[in-house]
């Protein structure tokens, strides 16, 4: 039981970390214009929250309007 709980938490965090890298490189600029041009230290600062709340941000990223000229 304890092993299963730990595995679920680690799996969730691993997916969040995998999601976090492209999100902080591209996705964040799509869902929030105020993040465009923000320093990498800001992006690093919000990474723990991105890992914790990645399903919320993934949904927002999917629904965000595509930038002009994108395929």
């Amino acid at each position, binding site marked *: 039981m304890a092993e299963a709980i730990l595995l679920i938490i680690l799996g969730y965090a691993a997916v969040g970390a995998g999601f976090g890298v492209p999100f902080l490189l591209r996705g964040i600029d799509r869902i929030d214009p105020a993040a465009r*041009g923000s320093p990498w230290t*800001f992006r690093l*600062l919000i990474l*723990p929250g991105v890992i*914790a709340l990645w399903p919320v*941000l993934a949904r927002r990223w999917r629904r965000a309007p595509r930038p002009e000229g994108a395929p």
Partner: protein
Amino acid sequence: MSVGYVTVQWNRHKRVYDSLVGGGVALYLALFIIAGKTLYTGAHAISDEILAIRALGTCAYLMLHVVLCTGPLARLDRRFLPLLYNRRHLGVATFLVALAHATIAIGFYHGFGNVNPFISLLTSNVNLGSLSAFPFQLLGLAALLILFLMAATSHDFWLKNLGAPAWKRLHMVVYLAYALLVLHVALGILQTQRSPWLAGLVGAGVVIVAGLHVVAGLRERGHDRRGAQRTARVNGPWVDVGCVDDVPDRRGMTATVGGGERIALFRYDGCISATTNVCAHQGGPLGEGRIIDGCVTCPWHGWQYRPGDGQSPPPFTERIATHRVRVVGRRIQVDPTPLAPGTAVTPARIEEDHHG
């Protein structure tokens, strides 16, 4: 305010605040460890690791009390507002101290076997039905996870992207973390210390936190009840909300009309303006703020709006609702129906008082 995100919005005030927090934590830890080494010697000596665990744990617990008491204290007495202004940094610092406490505790008590320390933490004590042997560490772990979520979502990015209501609800979970920590500490003391004065301190902390919230809540309720008795006149929308002399110059005052949302009134440059009382940032009470550089300034985090149209000064783009206002004699009358955020309203000029 949201033009572009920065890592930390430091200013002189926040640097002083953070320096005091950092210095205070370092001083507390040093004094705790020195006292522990001095008072417990010989056969009663406490190991360095246990002293560090206790110093960090009690420090984080005290800091959480300060975090929780700041809100009601600032409502009861404006002199506590500077503590509120940078409370988020204090919250993050509380999490970091609690994390250090948990890291050393898990490493010290669960890190020397061949079982994963977290598995050991979850499985080494399963006496869930026993008060005197309850695995209080699990309560601390749950509270730490909540404090992590608070700290990780403390940046304005989260406030904007989760939405203020959801963000506020998320951060109200800090009270659940506090309840878990009270049990964590109380059961821990019960199992290891059996000292009545320590149990008394924990009880006193709960009474102070709960008492301040109740007193501040009762005061707010009284304010709203008085406001609910104000209703519009028969011949128009105007509602009398007070005397111009009730509003200090370059400061605000709040008024409630008919049980609706509070209205903030501001006096400046011989005029009165009215806006919503709710800051667009975290819902801070604008009416408890001041006019700084010609702008309404929220007492919580310093967000600013022009009193005449509710718009943040350029380059910022936030807007709050405004209200029509007029001054008749020395009485302030407002139209309780809010105008669209950012709507310009002519400020009501205060007639010169020729009586005195």
